[in-house]
């Protein structure tokens, strides 16, 4: 399987009642998403993103062309077993409560009762809805429904996660959490295809993007290649004295270049999360949005989840070791080894706890350029995350980011 998602001249024409062509929703689309890639499908409203996803999943029949998901048909149950899908809105059964909802989807996968129960609890914890798990989802706010939607997409620990506008309706912490989750899943070798028009989100997490307009791909490529300003350099330092700044300016002027010195601004997102976290740590009563509080619950209960998940991860099961080695051009695949630290972190943030699949995943090591803009944001985010998770993940996370090439050395968890 060379590509996780592949389409061949995929076309969808919507006709009117008389069969006259009305709209080319998707026009000869050739989309290729490699395994273990976070691929962002961008585009303005009505550019054919969602239609493309629906065709991939067999919800719409293409007028022309075909598509493959994980090397098979998107409507085939065998393929569906390995896919998680979050539609553009979380369409849930309003009369079921959160736990029943997840249980229903778990049953569709034929998960054994024990595994199902553990995953449901872990997922509810993860999305921060454990306290309201017995409330009908019809009474949930949009953000809460979104969280359940996300949880149902993850219940089978999918190899390919298809997310349509995953962050709509979520508060900044929820958004942050989804973005982190996507990154963690990618580290575990999962493929993520996401549709969005929230560019900041895409920029933070996607390896590659394609921008659609009028049902066609206008441009595609690596985010960094597309965005990096190769004619500029940025240096970030600790708070140094004005004298040193002057010295640096002097050096820069000697190279005949311009230089601008400012204090870096926090992103509002970072600031927001820091404020809420501080409030939570002081256990201040909140009259804020329900979902915000719930996320707090989830994050403070993080350790407990970790232990449950670790237990699950250490269970000795192995079924479909496919032996496939996802390879990208900048990646050296390391056979049959996973970094221990990485795995722990992962299990913490994802419910994805079935060790069987994870065994099949050969770690891929990203040797991305570290200097670019997203890198800096990542650093900041990690700090926040560490704070939120009570510092337990700090070490492993750093290791994860900086020592990836050594991943092959560490033993299996």
């Amino acid at each position, binding site marked *: 399987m060379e590509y996780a998602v592949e389409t061949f001249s995929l076309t969808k024409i*919507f006709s009117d009642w008389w069969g006259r062509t009305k*709209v080319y*929703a998707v026009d000869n689309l050739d989309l290729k998403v490699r395994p273990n890639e976070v691929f962002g499908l961008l585009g303005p409203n*009505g550019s*054919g993103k*969602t*239609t493309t996803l*629906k065709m991939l*999943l*067999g*919800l*719409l*029949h293409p007028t022309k062309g075909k598509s493959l998901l994980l090397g098979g048909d*998107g*409507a085939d*149950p*065998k393929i*569906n*077993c390995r*896919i998680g*899908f*979050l*539609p553009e*809105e979380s*369409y*849930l*059964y309003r*009369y*079921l409560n959160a736990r*029943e909802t997840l249980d*229903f*989807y778990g*049953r*569709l*996968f*034929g998960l054994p009762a024990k595994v199902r129960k553990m995953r449901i609890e872990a997922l509810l914890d993860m999305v921060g809805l454990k306290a309201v798990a017995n409330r*009908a989802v019809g009474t949930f706010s949009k953000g809460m429904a979104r969280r359940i*939607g996300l949880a*149902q*997409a993850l219940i*089978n620990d999918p190899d390919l996660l298809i997310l349509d506008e995953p962050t709509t309706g979520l508060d900044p912490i929820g958004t942050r959490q989804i973005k982190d989750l996507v990154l963690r899943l990618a580290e575990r070798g999962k493929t993520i295809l996401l549709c969005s028009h929230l560019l900041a989100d895409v920029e933070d997490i996607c390896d590659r993007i394609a921008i659609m307009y009028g049902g066609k791909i206008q441009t595609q490529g690596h985010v960094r290649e597309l965005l990096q300003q190769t004619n500029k350099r940025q240096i970030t330092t600790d708070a140094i004295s004005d004298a040193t700044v002057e010295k640096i300016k002097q050096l820069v002027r000697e190279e005949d270049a311009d230089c601008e010195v400012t204090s870096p601004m926090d992103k509002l997102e970072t600031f927001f999360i820091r404020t809420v976290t501080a409030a939570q740590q002081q256990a201040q009563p909140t009259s804020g949005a329900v979902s915000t509080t719930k996320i707090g619950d989830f994050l403070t209960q993080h350790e407990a989840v970790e232990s449950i998940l670790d237990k699950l991860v250490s269970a000795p099961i192995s079924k479909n070791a496919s032996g496939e080695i996802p390879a990208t051009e900048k990646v050296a695949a390391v056979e049959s080894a996973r970094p221990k630290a990485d795995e722990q972190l992962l299990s913490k943030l994802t419910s994805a706890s079935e060790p069987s699949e994870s065994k099949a995943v050969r770690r891929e090591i990203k040797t991305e350029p570290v200097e670019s803009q997203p890198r800096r944001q990542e650093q900041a985010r990690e700090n926040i995350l560490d704070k939120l998770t009570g510092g337990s993940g700090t070490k492993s996370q750093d290791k994860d980011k900086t020592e990836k090439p050594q991943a092959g050395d560490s033993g299996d968890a």
Partner: protein
Amino acid sequence: MHSIWAVAINTIKQALRIKVAVVFTILLIVLLPVLGITTTGDETLKGRLQTFVSYALSLTSFLLCLLTIIISIYSVTSDIEQKQIYTVITKPIRRFQLILGKLFGVIVLNTILLCLFSAIIYTITIYMPKFINVPEYELIEANNEFFTARASLNVPEVDVTREVTDRYKELDRRGELPANVPREEIITQLTQQAQLAKRAAGVGQVLLWDFDNVESLAENIFIKFKYDVSVSPPDSQVYGRWFAGDYQYFKYGTQSKTPIYDEMHKHSVRDFHEIEIPAEVVPEHGHLAVAFMNVPLNNVAIIFPPDGLEVLYKADSFGNNFIRAVLLILFRLIFLACLGILAASFLSFPVAILFCFVIFFTASFSGFVIESFGFLGENIGTIYSYSLKWLIQLLPQFDKFNPTKFLVPARLISWSFLAKCAVLMVCIKAFLILILSLIIFSYREIARITV
């Protein structure tokens, strides 16, 4: 299978939690006992029981039919309209499994509700005689004519073809045939006359019916009959002398080993009545005769209408018959569930409901509908017989398999009759409908067009 079951459970939860099923259930739980208290029938215990069972069972059946149609349609269309199907169908479940799951859920729910309500009806029916003070003879009447399941002996067709042909020839010979009337019509008229003659007894005359291959019975047999008279007597009552016993005794006067029943009764005209006859009168060789004598006291000719005489015997208990009656309703519900699924597979909720109601009501009067089409003019009739007729034949005949039609007169619903209903309504018609809906649903586009 696990996915079918998961969908089925979800469908049941849906029906209960959106409160459709709950409303119907409460309605019935309130209405059934009220019916039990308020029905009086013709003031006798039997009449009361008959009215209650008839109303209660019809009401339950009707409400459950509506519920089935609504739930089966809603569970499919709401999934599509509210798009929950996006997340369901992208899980490892095939479309046919989803549909089967929905259907299964509806049928399970129906079975549970039907069991509940029929248990209520049965209990009320059984306990009704104990709560009402009635004279002894009414209790006996109720036991004999209601709390039982009786089958009737086949009344042999009287063959009058030969008589009619002879009569026609005679008329022809005498030149008394009316002009301008086709032969068939004359034959029909003559046949009717001849058959009427076979059922009429002038004063002092005897009518005899014979029943072959009657097995010896444990319990008493009943003659159920209705008198018609040309001129009503002043008190609307006539005398009749009834005989029953060995056929050979009546026909050839041979000595009978079994007793012969011979009694005089007085009954009102134009009503059904029953006479109880001891089981011992049935001869060993099984050739039983029943005879009626129009005694001279009457001074008027007595005619038995075409369905005016039956010989009934107890074939099963009331309880068993009741269970089979409930099964008849269940088959009807299964058919409607399939129909609802079919409608929902390509129509939106309100249209599908309308479609199913039309089918349901047509099927409830299918006998009438089929009959009425028989009176179409020649040209339209030809078109009809090649087009609509087949469609109407495809409808299930709810009226033909109506359980109250059997329970009220305490008629046996035989297993073969039940099997016939199962084969026609479920195995053939419902199955075809289900296959069709699976095909439609498997090939349609699930997602709505949004650009």
